[in-house]
């Protein structure tokens, strides 16, 4: 897993309080990791904070899995 993937995973584990081994690329935040709609808003904010980038609402709506987040951030991360 890329460095960005590891950092994404760490944030997801912290915010959703889930086992690290469940945080795999195709895991859906809502269906597999127990997040609700507010959790996903907060996750996106945490990604923005960690990676120094802005994630517009229309992009945020396409980030449904751990892999989606990693892919988006590999392209857009500024830090």
């Amino acid at each position, binding site marked *: 897993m890329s460095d960005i993937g590891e950092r994404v995973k760490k944030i997801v584990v912290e*915010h*959703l*309080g889930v086992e690290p081994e469940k945080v795999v690329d195709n895991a859906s935040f809502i269906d597999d990791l127990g997040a609700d709609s*507010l959790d996903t*808003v*907060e996750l996106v*904010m945490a990604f*923005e*904070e960690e990676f120094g980038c*802005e994630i517009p609402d229309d992009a945020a709506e396409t980030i449904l899995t751990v892999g989606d987040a990693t892919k988006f951030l590999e392209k857009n991360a500024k830090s």
Partner: protein
Amino acid sequence: MRRVVVTGLGMVTPLGCGVEPTWKRILNGESGARRIESFDVSDLQTKIACVVPRGDGSNGSFNADQWMEPKDQRKVDDFIIFGMAAAKQALDDANWHPESEEDKCATGTMIGSGIGGLNGIADTAILLKERGPRRVSPFFIPGRLINLASGYVSIEHGLKGPNHSVVTACSTGAHAIGDAARLIALGDADVMVSGGAESPISRIGIAGFNAARALSTGFNETPEKASRPYDKDRDGFVMGEGAGVVVLEELDHARRRGARIYAEVIGYGLSGDAYHITSPSPDGDGGFRSMSAALKRAGLTPSDLDYINAHGTSTPLGDEIELGAVERLLGNAASKVAMSSTKSSTGHLLGAAGAIEAIFAILAIRDNVVPPTINLDNPSVQTAIDLVPHTAKKREINVVLSNSFGFGGTNASVIIRRLAD
């Protein structure tokens, strides 16, 4: 109307996590006051508070992880975590864990708070100013709202009956228990999880109450001496934090399931001072009328009272005004009634105060003991009422009245009696 009894108790206080650890220290005459260490107090007039002892959960310490998932703790202010802890204790104590849809719908929540998420509001205001609106958490609002103590408890335990909350400053806990008892009496619910929770200890909380000249400022070096109701050296209340929750239940419902019954809620009175936003009316008429209303509702006379758990916050004005109102109420019965302020030990838990004090009233009945008013070295006025200085006193107690008065001139009195057929 249907009769309402108490079948479960739970609390988190500056004297410990749990009813028995707190009660033991109350009866020992201990104080929960200490120097504030969680934030800078160097420029605050008041540098002390009655702080919940955090720890690993042993020896009566409070370990938040035992009561709420760490991921959820981050989303809420402490009053919600305290409320969750006290509610879980009370439901376990009552052995009431509704599973059928019918039982769930018959069980409601009414946990209030005086101020709610003050800390989170202050921190988020700074965040908004420094970093802008995009950094404000989606949990900012639901983690600060006063009724979310009830909300979280309802969700955690699947309680689908009335989901309500009270906000009447320092009368909150008493109003919550009184109002919840009425919902049961009127048939809106069979069981109510009811009380108050508060987490006001913060720079903005201390600064605000200091500005209102409400807090003790003269005992920063001897915090355990600061809360001294009725004593001539008292100079304001000591802020406390925590929660108190009771399980109230319709009498026959409790009997049918063989629940242990602590006591019966038999009287509840409410009144307004219509005088001033923070000062009680000097003639004490508001408190007098709320106590009188509670007695009328209970069908008792003043001489039936054995013990009064006073509002008694240790402010220069309030203590004597309440005492005057109680003397007026009791008349010739004054010499046979004991009245103490457990705030001398716990400090003032604001919206949780009335709830923990109702629990102390219940324990006074259970154990036939009056908790003391500690630090009462030199009463500022003479009275025929036994103010129970320094040490707890054994005596037969069957009927207790608990007073709570709040900013805005709001008053509540609750009367609890040993269960009699």
